[in-house]
């Protein structure tokens, strides 16, 4: 039975017992908190789920999400559960690269920080963000964008009727309003200020590429990693450098990535990370498969 490790982007909602689950398995999570503190210069050892500093600060949220993801994948592999394929949802790419031994743990932290800083520079002085539209198709959303000439775009297709949109705040808010009156079941702004997967971040590609070339040694992956952008299977350092630089500004299609994994015969998906956002999205995929979020992983370890 083929197994995929799938990695969420940022945690927006915790199940609640993630820390206890990881601490019960080993001290890996605590070690990774220490390593992250050293690599980032931010105190992650004092992390707890209710601390607003780790819920509202975009960079800290990204780093803590990466720590949860890497810690769980380490635990699984150490206990003999190995993936046949890896897939990172949006910024979950960094944890996928770590799990494939493409990068070291602290290289992932440095990549996250650099990507964040370069993105912030690119949008300096602009109000921007991301939103969610549930109940409209890609064509219907693009129809609204075109008709009203909005500077917003689809960032991700999670399912046929579930999308993330990205761009400047004003057109993004207008898009959400129009989507609701058009008949979307639900629209909301996400708690992020960076318009990830937006073409307005295209200028990040060059500087981020240069940073990777100068500071990160990308290796061949132990496991194939599926691109969220074009769904190709990646294994070489060149593949990963391209994916990393395009991931910030390229739109992604998680639904297509999931479908490819099903076509490749994956039956078990382990959501390596806090929360269960990827399990929720997977409801709309048809097929004979199971998704295990962190609080269900014990079933696999027994």
């Amino acid at each position, binding site marked *: 039975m083929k197994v995929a490790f799938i990695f969420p982007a940022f945690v927006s909602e915790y199940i609640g017992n993630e820390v206890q689950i990881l601490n019960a398995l080993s001290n890996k999570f605590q070690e990774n908190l220490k390593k992250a503190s050293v690599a980032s210069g931010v105190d992650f050892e004092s992390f707890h789920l209710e601390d607003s500093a780790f819920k509202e600060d975009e960079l800290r949220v990204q780093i803590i999400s990466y720590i949860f993801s890497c810690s769980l994948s380490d635990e699984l592999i150490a206990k003999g559960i190995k993936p046949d394929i890896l897939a990172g949802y949006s910024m979950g790419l960094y944890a996928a690269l770590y799990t494939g031994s493409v990068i070291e743990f602290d290289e992932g932290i440095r990549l996250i920080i650099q990507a964040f800083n370069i993105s912030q520079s690119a949008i300096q002085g602009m109000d921007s963000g991301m939103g969610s539209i*549930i109940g*409209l198709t890609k064509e219907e959303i693009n129809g609204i964008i075109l008709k009203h000439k909005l500077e917003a775009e689809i960032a991700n297709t999670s399912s046929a009727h579930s999308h993330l949109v990205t761009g400047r705040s004003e057109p993004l808010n207008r898009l959400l309003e129009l989507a609701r009156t058009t*008949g*979307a*079941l639900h629209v909301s702004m996400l708690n992020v200020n960076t318009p990830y997967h937006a073409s307005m971040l295209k200028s990040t590609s060059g500087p981020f590429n240069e940073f990777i070339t100068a500071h990160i040694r990308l290796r061949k992956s132990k496991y194939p990693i599926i691109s969220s952008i074009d769904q190709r299977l990646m294994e070489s350092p060149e593949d990963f450098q391209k994916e990393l630089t395009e991931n910030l500004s390229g739109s992604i299609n998680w639904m297509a990535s999931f479908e490819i994994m099903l076509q490749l015969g994956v039956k078990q998906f382990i959501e390596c990370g806090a929360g269960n956002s990827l399990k929720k999205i997977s409801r709309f995929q048809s097929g004979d498969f199971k998704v295990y979020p962190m609080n269900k992983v014990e079933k696999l370890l027994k």
Partner: protein
Amino acid sequence: MTKLNDKIKTEVREVIYDFFAEECEVEIDEITDDSKIIADLGGDSLMFLALIEIFTKKYDQEIDLKTIGKYSIKHPVETIGELIEMQLQIIEHGNNIINLD
């Protein structure tokens, strides 16, 4: 368009209760018609979409989701009881739900 009867009403209630018990990992006895889907059960809007898909398949309906979206602007759903009521309206009226007051 489907004529509602007691069997359908019972089925819809059971499916919705079972769905939220499983997805929200709560005991079914803890759910009531007054339970607030987001505040009490930790549910989300994707669950609403998933349920619509379950029922459109179950009752072989072809629904334009946008009609439900527009209807929900006038009739927002907060509780399990309201969701059951809306789902019954969808089953009974299909895309004509948009023409209801």
